[in-house]
């Protein structure tokens, strides 16, 4: 009876964990998910580099790290120009200039996806929450008094097609920033899968060993 119970427990643990491992993607809004595809990450990185980098640094990401998400050396060279390969990616605007323009230094984005609750979703929504008010000035619905302009011009986007294109871009940026916040996440999950599979097999064997040993008492 007791053995059956523990076997059942073990089985449910196995089933439960495999179920969790299978569903580990993070969803954004509008049906988008955080992507780990190189295509999305590269696209997100390019948008970041040309748009966000004006103000925001990625101090924990060096140019050479971009090779890990599918850029080849020539592509990174084209991006970095005079910057060194082993240097962190910093904003175009110096902190002093940013201070002059906005009265603050825009936050570093390296770990933004972890520094907010539901970070990736937050980043995605923030970029698409701009509206034009009656005076023709943009406002952000989820960040009152934001200094950042509507970089994607989402508040004045015309038609579904244009909006969808911007949504896709925002999703790619969110995916890229999720990667920068935890570059080893996919290694971690892959390793975790094998570790847990190994431990489950070991648990099963240990259970049999225990049962065989305890049978001596009957």
């Amino acid at each position: 009876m007791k053995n059956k119970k523990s076997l059942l427990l073990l089985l449910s643990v196995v089933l439960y964990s495999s179920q969790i491992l299978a569903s580990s993607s993070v969803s954004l809004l509008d049906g988008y998910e955080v992507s780990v595809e190189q295509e999305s990450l590269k696209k997100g990185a390019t948008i970041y580099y040309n748009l966000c980098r004006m103000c925001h640094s990625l101090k924990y990401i060096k140019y050479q790290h971009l090779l890990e998400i599918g850029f080849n050396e020539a592509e990174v060279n084209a991006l970095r120009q005079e910057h060194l390969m082993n240097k962190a990616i910093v904003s175009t605007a110096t902190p002093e200039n940013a201070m002059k323009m906005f009265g603050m230094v825009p936050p570093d984005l390296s770990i933004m996806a972890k520094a907010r609750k539901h970070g990736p979703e937050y980043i995605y929504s923030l970029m698409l929450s701009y509206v034009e008010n009656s005076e023709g000035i943009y406002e952000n619905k989820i960040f009152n008094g934001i200094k950042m302009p509507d970089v994607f011009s989402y508040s004045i986007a015309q038609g579904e097609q244009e909006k969808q294109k911007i949504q896709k871009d925002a999703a790619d940026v969110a995916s890229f920033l999720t990667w920068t916040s935890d570059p080893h996440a996919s290694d971690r999950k892959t390793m975790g899968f094998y570790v847990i599979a190994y431990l489950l097999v070991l648990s099963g064997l240990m259970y049999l060993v225990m049962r065989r040993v305890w049978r001596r008492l009957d």
Partner: protein
Amino acid sequence: MKNIISWIDRRFPLTSFVKNELTEYPTPRNLSFWWNFGSLAGVVLVIQIITGVFLAMHYKADASLAFDSVEHIMRDVNYGWLIRYMHSTGATAFFAVIFLHMARTLYYGSYRSPRELMWWTGQILLLLIMATAFMGYLLPWGQMSYWGAQVITSLFGAVPFLGDELVIWLRGDFTVGDATLTRFFALHYLVPFIIMAMIMVHLVALHSVKSSNPSGINLADKDNIPFHPYFTTKDLFGLCIFLVIYSYFVFFQPNMFIEAENYIPADPLQTPIHIVPEWYFLPFYAILRSIPDLLGGVIAMTISVLIFTLMPFLDRTKIPGGAVYRPFYRVLFYVFLINVLVLGYVGAKPPEGFLVILGQFSTALYFGLFAILPFLAKKEELWLRKKGLSPELEALIQSEEKHKAERLAAKRKAKGQQNEK
């Protein structure tokens, strides 16, 4: 090999120690899986110490470098992310295991005679672990680290007369700063080894009184079985199951127990909107906040942790065993458990509206349950006797009483002999 061992045995009780305390150490055969958590806590401590030592090789205890050094570990050090997530998840695992270990002790009445010293050394261990966890939480130097330490150290300011000096003495500065970080790092590295020593005391006490068991009565010798191979295999199986759950959190949900706010570097000029401690402190934090007066709150919180010490005095029933044979106590146990969960929930939320009243009610209930335990235990015993104890139980109580009387008589006799001399 045999020669070497016998050479050692002539100088050190190696073989007899291994035999008496490990392989043939008599253990009750009816222990359930609830008795696995002691050895699991030991394993978690070892995981924490090993990962901690490796983290310390790359960590920099300096207010201007600490945050970056943790990110450096997570990003650049080979498998640094694994070591760091094992350590941060390990803290959660440690408390989960310790709380289950304590819940088992409470449910089965393992704190009762003759195991009071087990319970009290365990209480000291709990305090040491709490202190270590609290100091360790400052080290990543994130917003929650900083403000958590700021709030908790400021509580010492409630101490009459010495308060302000005490706070400065603890922090090494007027606010939490570099001096606080370096001393917390030093102590965070030291205390685990004191915990190790305390565990040795805990184990020596255990091996003197032996394990309690689900029946709550001291078993006859024939019901004890050697620790090896029965409990080595059982503990290893339990360990495997634990590692599966632990690995799930390490590899798939490592940030579940890290506040998002703590990925923002500490900023003394910007207070987070809600300062919440780690989950394992939440019930005590809720008690602190439920008392409107600061000093009163600090006293209540301190007592809420230390009150477990009184359990052997509060619970003086003659009915053997824990909640298994004691319906009143069982109800009390579950009400206590649910109440702690409610307090945890209240502690996690901002103190507004209904939650304030709920917190105060739960705090009163928390202490009330301890207060009524002596009366409840007496009432329960009377009720059970009225209902009629089973002959086996009656016999057990009789034999316990007889043992007690014999021990007392022996003590008197020994004393008498001494006096004669």
